[in-house]
């Protein structure tokens, strides 16, 4: 296991040499303990390098948004944090990712434990074809937890996910009968029920209407007190509304005409949206805001 000490304020994003005026404004949120840290992270699919040289720090109990054009590797990076890339044949990670200082990709790491601590909510709601109750109870059950009352676990998770009032009378009914927005909140509740430390969300509102979206956003703000949240989104307003910090990714074309994703800059959301240090960030954001 590599004992990497998160020496906080030193690292600078591979791209942004220039640092904006604020003293906290490099990508390593100096004021906060870093929960997940990446150093020189590259991800390959076979021989294709999808993402290169990413250095990031995710502060404790912060919401970090990852934005950038399609195909620049946001999901790829996100899937490294809970080792879901392991499921993709040919995917390979170089560089280091640490979780509370421990190398996530060390040989003796238990991927099960990683995934329990670093939960994930997917783009498309993916409730299990079981009852609402069993969806929530699934995590604690497979992790072999002895709980005094599973009913309480279920109620608490659903309450935290702001879904309890809507489903409390139909806990035994199929989760597939819920609306898309309810299903997504169910997936968040399911994730919370295993008491993770970090929640990864890959475009969690992509298939939802504005009302459901705003419910999920409220929920994220609500959860931010207790969880470190990393969210990938194409919705600039959403990033601006919910996140504390924002990372902007883009894709460069190399000499051989191959596109590689990389981090341009990472900073406080306010700085990224009002005074980014890289012109590409500004171009992307202003293009999106219209």
């Amino acid at each position, binding site marked *: 296991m590599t004992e990497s000490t998160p020496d906080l304020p030193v690292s600078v994003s591979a791209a942004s040499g220039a640092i904006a005026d604020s003293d906290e404004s490099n990508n390593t949120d100096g004021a906060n303990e870093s929960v997940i840290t990446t150093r020189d992270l590259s991800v390959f699919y076979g021989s294709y390098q999808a993402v290169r040289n990413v250095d990031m720090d995710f502060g404790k109990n912060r919401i970090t948004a990852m934005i950038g054009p399609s195909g620049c590797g946001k999901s790829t990076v996100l899937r490294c944090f*809970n080792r*879901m890339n392991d*499921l993709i*044949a040919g995917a390979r990670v170089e560089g280091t990712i640490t979780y509370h200082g421990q190398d996530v990709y060390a040989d003796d790491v238990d991927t*099960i*434990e990683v*995934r*329990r601590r670093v*939960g*994930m909510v*997917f783009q*498309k709601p*993916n*409730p*299990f*074809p*079981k009852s609402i109750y069993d969806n929530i109870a*699934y*995590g604690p059950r*497979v*992790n072999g937890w002895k709980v005094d009352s599973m009913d309480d676990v279920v109620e608490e998770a659903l309450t935290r996910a702001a879904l309890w009032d809507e489903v409390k009378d139909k806990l035994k009914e*199929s989760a*597939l009968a819920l609306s898309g927005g309810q299903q997504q909140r169910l*997936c968040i509740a*399911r*994730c919370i029920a*295993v008491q993770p430390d970090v929640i990864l969300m890959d475009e969690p509102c992509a298939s939802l209407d504005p009302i459901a979206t705003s419910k999920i956003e409220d929920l994220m703000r609500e959860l931010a007190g207790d969880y470190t949240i990393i969210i990938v989104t194409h919705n600039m307003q959403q990033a601006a509304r919910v996140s504390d910090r924002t990372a902007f990714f883009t894709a460069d074309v190399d000499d051989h005409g191959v596109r590689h994703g990389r981090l341009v800059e990472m900073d406080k959301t306010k700085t990224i949206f009002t005074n980014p240090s890289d012109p590409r960030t500004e171009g992307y954001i202003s293009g999106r805001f219209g």
Partner: protein
Amino acid sequence: MTITEPLPSPSAPLDRPLLKATGEPLRERAFKWLLWFCMGVGLLTLVVLLTYVVIKGWSRLDSRLITNMPSSVLPETAGAQSAIAGTLWLMTFTAIWSLPTGILAAIYLEEYGDANRWYNRAIEINILNLAAVPSIVFGILGLAFISRGLGFGPTILTGSITLALLVLPIVVIASREAIRAVPQSIRAGSLALGATQWQTVYRQVLPAAIPGIATGAILALSRAIGEAAPLLMLGVSFVQFNPDGLMSNFTALPVQIYSWTTEARPEYGTLAAAASVVLLIMLLAMNSVAIYIRNKTQRRW
């Protein structure tokens, strides 16, 4: 259908009602008729066959069939009790050997095996080929290796292992299809919660695949229940007692039917038809069990 002219504006005077149906094009109708025709051929054949068998066997479709033992001397008192019992024993053990093996093999190939490895590809191609091997070849295999090689003789054990090998590819192929139809997002969701791969397979993939697996299992057993050739090859013939264990000699309905149809006396033809009806009823019963399982497991979704 392509729009060749702009649609008339609703306010403009129309020479025909705007939304009036123009009738199905001939091609659509012709295709529908073709479908009906094909279905009709299939259904009609089945109905004719069933009616023929029932009419032919009608005079012998009574309790004698179940209470009496087969006989090649007295067609009036001959029954098929030992054959019915033999078929039940045979099917039970065929299922016991082939279903767990086939389902586990399918799980291995779909969920664990790396499809790019040469040995997994070899297994896969072999299974597909095995499904196309004529049943008599399995009979020869059973005779040479199980009956004589292992010295088990023409017993329930030999028969059920032979039939299990025969239908194993069907079980594997159907189970793989069912497992593959389970969306990847379910596996990802389960693993992301900290479930192990086996937990994911056992608690998510298999329950979701059960309807498809049950259908495959019944297809396989339906194939096995009607097989006479491999059993004849094994030397299964007339016995006048019910099996009492795996090492017991036996006879089975298809074998019995076959040997009756080769008898010269017409009474035996009637008997064969009646026994065929019994075989069909057992087949239908098996199918209903599968449909029941399918409906019951699907309702949980």
